[in-house]
């Protein structure tokens, strides 16, 4: 084993001599660093850095030597390196000529100060406004493309649209069905449990019909699809952006909105109402089984009660909302995909953002619909 790396100072005839000993390698850099900081550096003298006893040297070691040399020179010493072995010379020369890099000081993040914090709030506000502006712009662009396509329907890419319908609709059926079924079970059970106290447990059926058909079916499905397909849209388009595939489309004379966005929007606008209808059916099935199991309402009684409790509009109110939600989810997903810049990290961040935004917008839109329907008296 080589002796441990260290540096020893001694006063000699020709001035101060600092003797470096041992292996000056990255592994011992921490020890050396402490030792060097503890060293009492002389001022205005002749100082010799003696490397005779150095076993091995690497970049970190060379850097520490040269750092010491700089520190000594800064205190007015005349510094000389002595006994530099031939094999070390190129490394020291390399670090001396290129490696005198100063570490960049890490600035305190501005939002850690009060002023910075307030400024950050302002920045976020402006960013939100900018994003809204650009999102509305994207919405406008898509609307124009949709209008153009309605004039010339042949421009809709049928295969791509059908593929999207399969991916967003057919493939989502198991999860949407299962969750709706379970929600039906839960609503029926909780409703029956509470209404039993009034002896009105039969109205659990009305509760189930109205809540599932009007709100829960469509909202639940839209949220699942936002998480499942909205995120996929962002990730797909974002990855294409990273790979410059979007640029390639542009240069090939293809319009990315027409090629990528319209099939996704149309695919989802066609599928979401169907999915919602399916979710409604599964929810009712779950509710029917649950009311039958807990309060003994037979299926024919259930259907009779349901027919008296709801109108066909109850169903339509839910389903009418679906295409609007679908358009919102698809647009937000695609829009965030186009916002991806450069890195893989950006894809991840915007995918999260797209899901959160899509769900947010869906719920806001649902509230708007509620106000509208109540104004219309439906």
């Amino acid at each position, binding site marked *: 084993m080589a002796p441990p790396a260290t540096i020893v100072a001694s006063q000699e005839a020709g001035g101060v001599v600092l003797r470096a000993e041992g292996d000056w*390698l*990255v592994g011992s850099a*921490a020890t050396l660093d402490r030792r060097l900081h503890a060293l009492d550096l002389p001022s205005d003298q002749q100082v010799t850095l003696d490397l005779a006893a150095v076993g091995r040297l690497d970049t970190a070691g060379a850097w520490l030597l040269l750092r010491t040399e700089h520190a000594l020179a800064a205190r007015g010493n005349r510094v000389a390196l002595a006994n530099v072995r031939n094999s070390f010379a190129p490394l020291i020369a390399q670090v001396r000529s290129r*490696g005198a890099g100063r570490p960049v000081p890490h600035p305190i993040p501005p939002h850690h100060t009060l002023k910075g914090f307030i400024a950050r709030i302002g920045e976020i506000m402006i960013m939100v406004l900018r994003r809204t502006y650009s999102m509305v712009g994207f919405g406008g662009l898509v609307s124009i493309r949709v209008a153009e396509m309605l004039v010339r329907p042949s421009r809709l890419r049928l295969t791509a649209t059908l593929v999207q319908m399969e991916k967003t609709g057919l493939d989502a059926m198991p999860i949407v069905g299962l969750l709706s079924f379970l929600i039906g079970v839960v609503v029926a059970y909780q409703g029956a449990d509470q209404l039993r106290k009034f002896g009105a447990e039969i109205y659990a059926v009305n509760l189930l019909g109205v809540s599932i058909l009007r709100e829960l079916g469509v909202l639940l499905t839209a949220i699942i699809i936002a998480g499942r397909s909205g995120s996929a849209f962002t990730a797909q388009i974002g990855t294409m952006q990273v790979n410059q595939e979007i640029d390639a489309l542009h240069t090939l004379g293809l319009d990315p909105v027409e090629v990528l966005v319209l099939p996704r929007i149309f695919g989802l606008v066609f599928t979401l109402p169907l999915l919602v209808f399916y979710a409604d059916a599964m929810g009712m099935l779950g509710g029917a089984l649950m009311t039958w199991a807990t309060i003994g309402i037979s299926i024919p009684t259930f259907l009779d009660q349901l027919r008296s409790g709801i109108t066909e509009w109850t169903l339509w109110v839910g389903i009418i909302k679906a295409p609007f939600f679908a358009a919102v989810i698809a647009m937000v997903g695609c829009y965030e995909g186009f916002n991806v*810049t450069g890195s893989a990290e950006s894809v991840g961040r915007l995918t999260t953002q797209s899901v959160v935004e899509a769900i947010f917008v869906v719920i806001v839109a649902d509230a708007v619909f509620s106000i509208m329907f109540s104004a219309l008296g439906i």
Partner: protein
Amino acid sequence: MPSDAEDIVISVRGLVSRFGEQTVHDGIDLDVHRGEVLGVVGGSGSGKSVLLRTIVGLRRPQAGDINVLGYDVLHLDDSDAQALEQRWGVLFQDGALFSSLTVAQNIEVPLREHVPMPEPLMDEIAACKIAIVGLPEATADKFPSQLSGGMRKRAGLARALALDPEILFLDEPTAGLDPIGAAEFDQLIRDLKASLDLTVFLVTHDLDTLFAICDRVAVLVDSKIRIGTLDQLLADDHPWIHAYFHGPRGRAAHPGSDS
């Protein structure tokens, strides 16, 4: 246990790599000596990068033995694997920098993991490496996505050099660089090799790089390997090797080679 064979730092014996039906390497033997620059060339799909990935243990071959610095790469236990990984540095094609970290933080990843040291010293060493690979100081706080391709490669090189490795693996270091940048990169590798006493295993397409810095060249052809100095390979009459070195680009890179 490591048993350092004197002069040979990488030794490959009877390497067979297959992808499904396709055999990429069919019994390759290869020795890399300490302190040399070995260039690996071959047509697209001839398994140059696969060879590199196999040697550094990212891919298990179908057969063969690989020995690096006295360690049997294919049968490493965890502590040996860690010890070995600190003694080599790998530069991937596009730098493979961690995109969520700044350049300085990228360089500090291996330091932080393997050699505990105070934060300021780590920053100093990172800054030193950044300067050594010829990047401006301000690069330290930039993220990889803010750098050009050439700068990313240099930053990747700085990370590969973080622990002062003995062997440097480079996967197409000059691909995608402009000729000036590529020549500078060649010069950088040559300087670093001289000053840090590196052994370099270099996969490349770039004939200029071969002529500029390689001591020996390994050609992957017909799933086999041929190794020799450039002069030996220039005299080789295998059709692919002849076409490679004596084609228009080969002649341009090495004027007089056809005489």
